[in-house]
Structure formats: structure tokens, C-alpha cells
């Protein structure tokens, strides 16, 4: 092991910023991070062991105790549930003779849940040793169990288990026009970088992650910073349940995304860029690396790009299972090899980002759009869309529809149009923008896709009338409690309290005051949390409370108060130990049950 770790450390130039990448390799080899590895890394990277442990314990894909040689994770997104995930997980646990959340006694396999893996259009999905599994069903589970029990190495598993489809059903402005490799850069250099920034400004392009900050302004601020060492970061940590468009863009449009990053670098004067790729997209890593190599060979990365005197290169950094790293300052912390805890702002990343230097962080789709704008000019883009939302938006559509997949629409398109085209019928409502977005009911389908109406990072989950909205809300609320980084009190404690309160109501233990208590808690978490995660964690509850108050109320007992825990259940241990079976050994949950 010593030599193995020594080699990894050396390959990473003993840089502590590469800690996540180093730990990924160790986890992959040993299925945990052994104590000896921590000590050795502490020496060779010259960081404290506590820093290493805090990183291991922060990310879902790192472990201090051994997982199975086959680490099997099943995606817990609501869309996977809608496709029968729970039954499948039980089936798999049974087939493999392993308890969910544990390692089988022989150490061969471990099975657990994981947050949305970004395969909502082809779930139920999972990961085995980090590689995406799609369209799981019972036959696939049988096969997986057999392969594991026969200890077949992953490279001998049938390819169809890992088959990931793009599922592009509707192309528009961006997806229709593959630009030629290098075209955006040559346009940029021949037009001039300042003029290209003007074109991007003219295009009205706003950040595609959901927040919608104007891209040209961000780039301009960064370029005006006195510090000349600057960075470009592409945020490919799309962890919002229900979104998977970046997966498709990086699978089929990666060249353009990298080109957009390079255009940005030329404009702001950055020499180094990073693609922060969510760990769940490990399957894309080698392909992306090849594209980068090819671009280097073609003089589109490296020194003196296109003989324009611009030096720039891109490094791919993989995440390790933490939704919070989609928040830009948490992402930067993660890039620096630390736990992904959002920073205090100001200062913003454009002034103090990666290693304290000015940094532009943009979404995958934003860079793709920027590259296309660099070729076609700003007006071409600004002609489409609405007054405040120019261009198109690429949606990841999943849930109850005939054709889940990727759809590109001009801003201003109505929800009804989208529903018609993806084959959704008998629709109850749509979760627009993922759990952190808005749930809209079937009374609101004339609303429009736009920053000024329904803003979205791309997640679009459809529920038909056979679904129980509260199941979705409960799933989302659990998700946020699981993904809260824990930095600030309102989110750390509040998301756990929301989970408890929501469970209480859904499980039928709620009474009159519980909805008021729920709403009050939602406001507290929303108004006082440190970052976007906490500020939006209550959205699933708030947006459905607003629309379906009656549904919540129907869950409540018609009494003024009900204990928040199972009273009789809490006597079970004592009953068993005292061998008591008399009536006095039981408690009714409420007094009305006595009568």
C-alpha cells in the first residue's frame, strides 16, 4: 500500500489541492481509506490528518471503514422511486443477501442508497464502484447479483448494464448547431476579446445554473480585478434531483463546452481552468480526458492557442458525492481539496475564488452557449426568448411522460407546450427547477419558462394524478437533510427538524398545530440559512403547502394534540423484557383511542 499511495501522491505532485482526486483512487483500490493511508498522506501532502479525515467524512463516496469490493449504490431520486426503486432495492438486497446500508459478511458487496445519480430519464439507476448503472429491473438485478457472486471484474460485465443514452428529443438554438472545433476561438480572436465580451453582453446570456446572473458582467468583473492570476471553472456538479442535461452536454457537446471555457479564459485572462465533474459521472471522465488531449494536439489548449498568445489548459476534477458542491464557493473549496462548505460572501469568487484568486464559475450550459454566441454573435441569441430571458433553456424532463429526456426550448415557452411535446397526460403537477425550485399545479400550465416567471436550472419532473404529492415532498425534504453541509445552525438543525416534522405529518401523527409549526420552521430555515441549499430546502414544503393545504390537513388527526412519537411502540422493549402481555402494558396513542 505504501508504494501505491506514494505513486498517487507523486502523480498529483504532492498537491493538497488534489486531495479529493487522491482519495478517490485510494477508495477505488481499497474500498475505504485506511488509517495508514491517512498518516502517509498527511506527511507527503504536508497537511494535518484532521484535514484529511474531515474531507473523508464530508463526502458520501469516501469511507473510513471498508465497504464491499463491489460498492453498490441505488439512486434515491423521486424519479427512481416512481420507477419502482424501492421494490428493486429490496429485491437486490435479497438476491445478494446483504442488508441495505451494510457490508455483506464476506466483504464482497455493500449496498446502500445514494442521492440522485442524474439518470432520471433511464432509471431506476445506480452506481457500482462509481460507474453508472441504468434501467435497472429484476433481470438486471439477477445478472448483477450473479456477476458479483462470481466476482467478475467490472470490465467483464455486459456493456448494456452501463449503457447511458442521450435521449435528446428536441433541439433548438444550441443543440441544433454543433460549431466546428476551434470556430468559437477563431471568431473570438479575429473579432477581438473585448468585442467578443460585448457580443456576449449583447446576447443577454444569464447563468444557466438557475440563479441567472448575467454572464458578461461576471466575466467583466473578473477581468477587471487587479490580481492577474485568474481561473475559469465549469460547474458540472449537477446534483439537483431531476437534472441530467449536463451529462448529455458533456457526452455529446463537450468540445463546445471546453471551447466556451477557453473563450472565457481569453476574455478574462486566465491560464488555468477546471471542469468540476460530479463523481456520479465518472463514466464520462476518460472520454472527456481524450477530448482535452485532442484539443491540446490541435493547438486549442496549451501554450499560445491559435497563435493568439493565449495560454490556457483545463483539468478535470471529480467530486465525491456532495450536492452542496454545486454551490459555487463550496465547489471552489472542494477544488482546493477541502470539504465543500460554502464561503462567507462577500468576497465573491470573481474577486477571491480558487486559491483566493479571481475566478469565474459558470454552468456547463452557459459555456456551451457562450461558445455558440462567440461564433454567431449576440443578436442571434438575443432575438429568441423573452425580455429578461434571452435564448433557450435546455431541460431535463423526467417523471410521468412518454418520452423523458432532453428538450431545448426558447425562454417564454409555456409549461403546457412542454407537457404536450414530451407526452405527459393526466398531469397533476410539475416540479420545475428540482426540489429547490417550485411545484406548480395543473392550474398553472400557462406559466412560462423564464427567469421572470419559472426559473430553472433544468430539472423538470412530471407527476401524474396517480402520485401522492406528499411522497415527493417527503423525499425532497429527506434529500436536503442528507445533503446539508452542516455549517450553519438554521440549515443543519432546521433541515433535520423539517424531516422529522414532515415524517410526523405523513405518518399520520400530525395534529392541529403541526402545519403552523411546519410553516414557521420553513420560514426560519429559508430566511436564516447561509447559502442557497438552506434557503431553498423548505421550497418543496412551502410551494405545496401554498397549493395543496387540504392535502396536508387531511393527514392530520382531528384532535388538538398528538404525540410526535409512537407511544405504544416505545414500551415494546420493556414489555418484552418483563414478559408483560396484559392490557395495562399498552398505551393508546391518543386518549380518544381509549374511548
Amino acid at each position, binding site marked *: 500500500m505504501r508504494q501505491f499511495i506514494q505513486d498517487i501522491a507523486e502523480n498529483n505532485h504532492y498537491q493538497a489541492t488534489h486531495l479529493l482526486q487522491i482519495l478517490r483512487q485510494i477508495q477505488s483500490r481499497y474500498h475505504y481509506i485506511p488509517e495508514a493511508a491517512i498518516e502517509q498522506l498527511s506527511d507527503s501532502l504536508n497537511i494535518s490528518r484532521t484535514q484529511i479525515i474531515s474531507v473523508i467524512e464530508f463526502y458520501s463516496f469516501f469511507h473510513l471503514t471498508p465497504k464491499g469490493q463491489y460498492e453498490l449504490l441505488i439512486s434515491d431520486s423521486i424519479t427512481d422511486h416512481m420507477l419502482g426503486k424501492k421494490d428493486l432495492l429490496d429485491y437486490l438486497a435479497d438476491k445478494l443477501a446483504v442488508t441495505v446500508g451494510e457490508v455483506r459478511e464476506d466483504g464482497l458487496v455493500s449496498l446502500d442508497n445514494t442521492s440522485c445519480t442524474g439518470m432520471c430519464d433511464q432509471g431506476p439507476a445506480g452506481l457500482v464502484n462509481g460507474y453508472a448503472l441504468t434501467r435497472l429491473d429484476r433481470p438486471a438485478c439477477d445478472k448483477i447479483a450473479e456477476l458479483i457472486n462470481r466476482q467478475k471484474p467490472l470490465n467483464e460485465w455486459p456493456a448494456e448494464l452501463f449503457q447511458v443514452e442521450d435521449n435528446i428529443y428536441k433541439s433548438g438554438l444550441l443543440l441544433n448547431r454543433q460549431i466546428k472545433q476551434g470556430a468559437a476561438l477563431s471568431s473570438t480572436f479575429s473579432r477581438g476579446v473585448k468585442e467578443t465580451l460585448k457580443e456576449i453582453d449583447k446576447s443577454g446570456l444569464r447563468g444557466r445554473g438557475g440563479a441567472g446572473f448575467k454572464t458578461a458582467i461576471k466575466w467583466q468583473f473578473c477581468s477587471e480585478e487587479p490580481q492577474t492570476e485568474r481561473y475559469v471553472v465549469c460547474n458540472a456538479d449537477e446534483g439537483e434531483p431531476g437534472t441530467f442535461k449536463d451529462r448529455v452536454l458533456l457526452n455529446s457537446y463537450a468540445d463546445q463546452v471546453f471551447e466556451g471555457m477557453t473563450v472565457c479564459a481569453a476574455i478574462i485572462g486566465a491560464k488555468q481552468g477546471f471542469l468540476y465533474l460530479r463523481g456520479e459521472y465518472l463514466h464520462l471522465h476518460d472520454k472527456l480526458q481524450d477530448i482535452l488531449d485532442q484539443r491540446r494536439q490541435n493547438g486549442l489548449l496549451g501554450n499560445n492557442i491559435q497563435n493568439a498568445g493565449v495560454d490556457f489548459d483545463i483539468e478535470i476534477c471529480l467530486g465525491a458525492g456532495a450536492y452542496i458542491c454545486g454551490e459555487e464557493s463550496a465547489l471552489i473549496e472542494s477544488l482546493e481539496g477541502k470539504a465543500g462548505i460554502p464561503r462567507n460572501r462577500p468576497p465573491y469568487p470573481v474577486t477571491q475564488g480558487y486559491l483566493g484568486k479571481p475566478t469565474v464559475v459558470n454552468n456547463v450550459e452557459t459555456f456551451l452557449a457562450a461558445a455558440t454566441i462567440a461564433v454567431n454573435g449576440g443578436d442571434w441569441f438575443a432575438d429568441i426568448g423573452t425580455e429578461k430571458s434571452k435564448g433557450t433553456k435546455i431541460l431535463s424532463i423526467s417523471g410521468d411522460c412518454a418520452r423523458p429526456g432532453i428538450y431545448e426550448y426558447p425562454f417564454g415557452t409555456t409549461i403546457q407546450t412542454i407537457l404536450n411535446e414530451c407526452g405527459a397526460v393526466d398531469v397533476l403537477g410539475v416540479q420545475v427547477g428540482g426540489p429547490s425550485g417550485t411545484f406548480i399545479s395543473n392550474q398553472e400550465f400557462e406559466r412560462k419558462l423564464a427567469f421572470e416567471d419559472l426559473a430553472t436550472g433544468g430539472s423538470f419532473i412530471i407527476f401524474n394524478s396517480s402520485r401522492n404529492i406528499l411522497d415527493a415532498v417527503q423525499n425532497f425534504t429527506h434529500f436536503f437533510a442528507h445533503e446539508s453541509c452542516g455549517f450553519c445552525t438554521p440549515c443543519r438543525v432546521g433541515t433535520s427538524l423539517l424531516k422529522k416534522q414532515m415524517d410526523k405529518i405523513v405518518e399520520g401523527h400530525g395534529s392541529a398545530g403541526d402545519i403552523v409549526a411546519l410553516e414557521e420552521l420553513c420560514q426560519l430555515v429559508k430566511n436564516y440559512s447561509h447559502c442557497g441549499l438552506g434557503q431553498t430546502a423548505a421550497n418543496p414544503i412551502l410551494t405545496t403547502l401554498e397549493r395543496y393545504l387540504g392535502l396536508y390537513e387531511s393527514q392530520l388527526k382531528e384532535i388538538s*394534540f398528538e404525540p410526535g412519537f409512537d*407511544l405504544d411502540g*416505545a*414500551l415494546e422493549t*420493556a414489555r418484552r*423484557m418483563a*414478559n408483560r402481555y396484559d392490557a395495562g402494558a399498552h398505551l393508546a396513542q391518543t386518549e380518544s383511542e381509549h374511548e
Partner: protein
Amino acid sequence: MANKIRVATTSLAGCFGCHMSFLDIDERMLQLVEVVEFDRSPLTDIEHCTNCDIGLIEGGVCNSENVHVLREFRNNCKILVAVGACAINGGLPALRNHIPLEECLNEAYLDGIGVENPQIPSDIELPLLLNQVHPIHEVVKIDYFLPGCPPSADVFWKFLTDLIEGREPSLPYELVHYD
């Protein structure tokens, strides 16, 4: 004197320290009984609550009997008050909350040091323990909270006189203590 305010008190999983502190209002008790009449309470030996205006509950909920007593108070008292740390957050009895009940019982009755004739007590007269000790507001609705271990005599006095004189009860800074 038919219009006297009726007060009931009890101690659940508590130590009666709050009751002792209540008695520390000393000679003010004479003023109090001018306007107050005690119903069920360790001070009166009345076994069951009748209709009361105020119920003072000391201690948390650790067993089935606590649940029954608490419900009797809730059903009979217009205003129910959590008195002291244990009623409010489980207090020191709640130190057992992160130890599984099975371990607690094993240690106490089966394999602990000095246990003779090891057996888990089992009698229909004995209340069964809940897995955890709970603050009383998790089992019934509570109207007011008087923190302290125990709340000082002045806390009782301030609270009761506020209620009796028709004011919304409040505790000034010097009367708020958690210890």
C-alpha cells in the same frame, strides 16, 4: 370562597425538588391559600384531579404511568404548566436517552455489579419504562414553561400571581435560569 382558583401539582420523572422549591415561597403561602385551593397534589394527598384552573407538572415522562397521570392533568386543567428542567427537556433522567433501554435494564437488574437474584421486575402494578425519557410537551399540549432546576420560589410566585391577577405571565431576566 367558592371562587378560589384550583391548582393541582404532580411529579412525574422528577425528584420533587420543584415542589420543595415551591414551598420555599414560605409565608407567602398564606397569601396564596387565600385565593388558591389545592386539588390533586403531594401537598394534599388527593389522588385524582377534578376540574382545575392550573396544573403544575414537575418531571419528564419516563414510563406508562407518567403518561396516564399527565393525560389526567391535561383533561382536568385549563392551564397546564411544565415546571423545571425535567418537564421541559427531560432533564437528568434523560441522560439515559442515548443508551438503549435493554442495556439499562440489563445493567440494573441482570448483570450489573452487586445484583442479587437477577430478574427483570414484572408485575401488573409496575409501570413499564418508555424507550426514552420525553419532555412533557411531546406528549400533551403545554401552555407555559417555568425553567430552572428547580425554578426558584420567586418564579412560582411571579408566575402564579401574574395568572391570579389576570396578567399574561412573564419572567424577567433575573428569574430565568436553566440550573
